[in-house]
């Protein structure tokens, strides 16, 4: 099973990878991208089974990335891992089809509980 981590901060991509391991998901194959445009290229080339995306990124935001996936007909489970988690953003995320929104800082327990329905 493959997971795509999208974040413009390489430090944060490392933290997400580490937290996935701590949550018991160290067996997942990890793909990475640093913005929505590059993430879309990864999806075209090698579609993942699950996507973790930051919201606020240069070039193409996480929400724009999700909308682009929707337009292209992809049905990959998609969740935001973001610093911003206001009710308005949660509503926008849900409306666009996101399955979950994890706010930073997060814990391995949060990852474990949130990912359970999506990880084989």
């Amino acid at each position, binding site marked *: 099973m493959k997971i795509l981590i999208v974040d*413009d*901060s*390489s*430090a*944060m991509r*490392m*933290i997400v990878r*580490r937290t996935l391991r701590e949550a018991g998901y160290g067996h997942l194959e990890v793909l990475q991208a640093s913005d929505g445009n590059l993430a879309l290229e990864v999806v075209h080339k090698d579609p993942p089974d699950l996507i973790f995306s930051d919201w*606020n*990124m*240069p070039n193409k935001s996480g929400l724009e990335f999700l909308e682009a996936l929707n337009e292209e007909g992809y049905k990959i489970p998609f969740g935001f891992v*973001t*610093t*911003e*988690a*206001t009710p*308005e953003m949660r509503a926008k995320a849900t409306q666009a089809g996101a399955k979950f929104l994890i*706010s*930073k*800082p*997060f*814990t391995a327990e949060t990852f474990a509980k949130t990912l359970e329905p999506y990880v084989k």
Partner: protein
Amino acid sequence: MLQIASGPLIPSQLTQATLQEIAESIWSSFLELELRPVADHSGFATTTSLLTGQVALQGDWQGFLTLVCAKPIARKAAAAMFNIAPARLDDAELHDTVGELTHILAGNLKSLLPAPCRLSLPVVTEGYNVPVNEKTIVKILLQCENHLLQITVFEKENPV
């Protein structure tokens, strides 16, 4: 005891205690580092080898959040985030770490501000580079393993 300055457009939750709680939560969960408050800010701005991260908050309330930290603690934080030895880190990785920490601080602060509110992407520069013409709302100085970091929230004096 530090004095808490507050502006009319900032919710009452925005205090030094709240800002410190946010910072401690981030440093503890992501970096496993402990922060302690320091009362005396004098001389901090002239500390050598500082990095400044800044994020703009734009919306009904407009301002900035800055994180200024000594490079040794930026290096320590980056080592924890990248899980590599501090000596192997380059400047880009230090800037990335300080930028991300600034952004997470601002994102957590955003929930306390009037909606709508948008965050800019973080900008990281060398030295002490906080806004000089804006009003300081809350400022805290913290110590992490004998190095200092300062977090300040500024209100824009002439919002667009």
